[in-house]
């Protein structure tokens, strides 16, 4: 696990990619739940969770790939914000689906920024994977005590699915037949993958540009879908290199990149070209997304175990004292993330 924020834009010319959270939407969801700055640092966990002790009272939010979460043994809702007390222990199990889970803290993780960001960028040697025993400083919490929110409808991007793409540098060199096949084939996320990118496999012939063209190294960006030497796609993620020479058949629109990042090995992905107009219509800045998500928060219905005086609350039908999920019974046709 490592600290991530929105990354460091502006250094491509020097060979440093932007980096930042692999699932940027999950980062923004956490900031919205805690009603704090969208640029703050959070903890990104790739597949595996961990145990966390709190030295002070504070707030947390949990987003991204859902994990089983226990605070002092008591289940916590995912995609929600919660209060934590000094001395309490948070246990997060492995991802139940998807890859990248996020633990957000009130005030954000306040490790010293380097080149304007707290994001760990492993390839560039910035920051580090946190080891057991690591202590993380927190910033001043803008809204201490404001907890108990959840996101009502979280985009289910944790099991693969349809990914919208636009043309990239070599799209035109693949020819109509391959572009058609690219959109009709179902790809499977291979084992090989990390914050730099993920390998996909598919049935059928390799994808290749005419005449085994060699392409001079040129700039590449997250979302680019390279066809590697074996003719299989490698989708670039935020920590990708800044230049490369594989032909790129398409570029994933920014809003759908989390679907690729969160596709665990074995997940199935399909690609579809969309018009520039549709891609623009689907695009939102982090700030816009944050504002929309913040407005869409709803109060978290608390677990009856927590409620000292049950009679003071009107219980929702179906919640029983035996319920072991904090938000069980309060969903309205919403998929249970766990």
């Amino acid at each position, binding site marked *: *696990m*490592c600290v991530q924020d929105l990354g460091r*834009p*502006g250094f*491509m*010319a*020097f*060979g*440093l990619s932007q980096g930042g959270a692999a699932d940027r939407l999950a980062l923004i969801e956490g900031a919205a739940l805690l009603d704090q700055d969208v640029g703050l640092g959070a903890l990104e966990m*790739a*597949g*595996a969770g961990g145990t966390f002790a709190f030295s002070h009272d504070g707030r947390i939010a949990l987003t991204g790939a859902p994990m089983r979460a226990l605070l002092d043994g008591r289940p916590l809702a995912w995609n929600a914000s919660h209060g934590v007390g000094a001395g309490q222990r948070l246990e997060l199990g492995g*991802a139940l689906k998807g*890859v990248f889970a996020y633990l957000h803290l009130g005030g954000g993780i306040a490790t010293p920024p*380097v*080149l304007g960001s707290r994001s*760990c960028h*492993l*390839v*560039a*040697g910035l920051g580090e*994977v946190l080891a057991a025993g690591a202590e993380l400083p927190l910033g001043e919490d803008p809204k201490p005590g404001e907890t108990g929110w959840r996101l009502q409808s979280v985009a289910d991007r944790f099991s693969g699915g349809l990914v919208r793409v*636009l*043309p990239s*540098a070599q799209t035109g060199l693949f020819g109509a037949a391959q572009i058609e096949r690219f959109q009709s084939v179902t790809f499977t996320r291979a084992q*090989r*993958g*990390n*914050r730099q*990118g993920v*390998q996909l496999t598919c049935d059928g012939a390799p994808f290749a540009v*005419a*005449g085994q063209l*060699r*392409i*001079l*190294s*040129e*700039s*590449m*960006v997250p979302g680019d879908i*390279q066809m*590697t*030497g074996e003719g299989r796609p490698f989708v670039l993620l935020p920590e*990708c*290199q*800044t*230049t*490369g*020479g594989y032909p*790129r058949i398409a*570029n*994933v*629109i*920014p809003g759908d990149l989390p679907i690729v990042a969160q596709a*665990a090995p074995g997940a199935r992905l399909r690609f579809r070209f969309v018009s*520039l107009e549709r*891609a*623009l219509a689907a695009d939102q*800045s982090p700030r816009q997304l944050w504002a929309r998500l913040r407005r869409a928060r709803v109060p978290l219905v608390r677990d009856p175990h927590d409620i000292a005086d049950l009679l003071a609350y009107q219980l929702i039908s179906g919640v029983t004292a035996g319920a072991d999920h904090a938000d069980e019974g309060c969903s309205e046709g919403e998929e249970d993330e766990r």
Partner: protein
Amino acid sequence: MNDIPGAPHPPPDPSSSGPSSSGPSPADPHPDPPHAAPPPGSLAYPHLRAIGLTGVLVDFSATLDEASNRAALAFRHMLETESWPGVEETATSLTSVFVRFDPAHVSHARMKQALQQALARRDWYSAPFPAGRRLWSVPAVFGGEHGPQLAEAAALAGLDEQAAIDELAARRTRVLTLGFAPGQPYLGELPRHWDLPRQDTLTARVPAGALVVAIRQLVLFSFASPTGWRHIAQTAFRNFRPQGDTPFVLHPGDELRFVPVSPETLANIRARDQSGNGGATSVPVP
């Protein structure tokens, strides 16, 4: 900076905590041999190509040559100087300029039109290099344990070791582009007899500051890394100094010359120069 073979990392399973290999990929850095055939059906140069929602590539050539590299540097310099509204970032690679922009601010059509107009302003292939370039003199130990493949590389270039050192030391090489690792320069071009193939098998690890050679170029490594290029010399120069006032020391277009020193001299430099310069000095490119 990877060309066709090699490139993306063999990444570990994400269920382990992030990439375990801390260094860059074994991928062999790099660009193509110069003067390869242009791509079939390729457009006339220079031309524009969209990359996703927020990028346009201004491409000056399918193959590396001095004029195209210079055109890219000059065109980017113009963009940086004029700082167009909506442009968020620009970068050069060997022969192209990447422009990242905010499509909510400037439409694709308008951005492409503005770039076409800028391309038409002049013959960019005859543009001078941008001002402000630096010439760095970097102490380097050639051969021996500091450059274990010098003899092999020299032989491939048809030279003996001393002739190879003399030739490389006498030459100024230009930063064609930076990449593969932060601040890491691709330097060239060397004369044709240095058009060496990459090794069939990767060297498992060369140290940070290693100088390696292949395909008429030199690379000065930012970090310890595996490589398919041949390790001919060692410097104490650090390309990337994230905690320093100048995190990125070299800029595309800067020039470097390597000054042969003894292993003892390099050891002394390491002992007294903590700046990351490794004894290197710089002056404006004459």
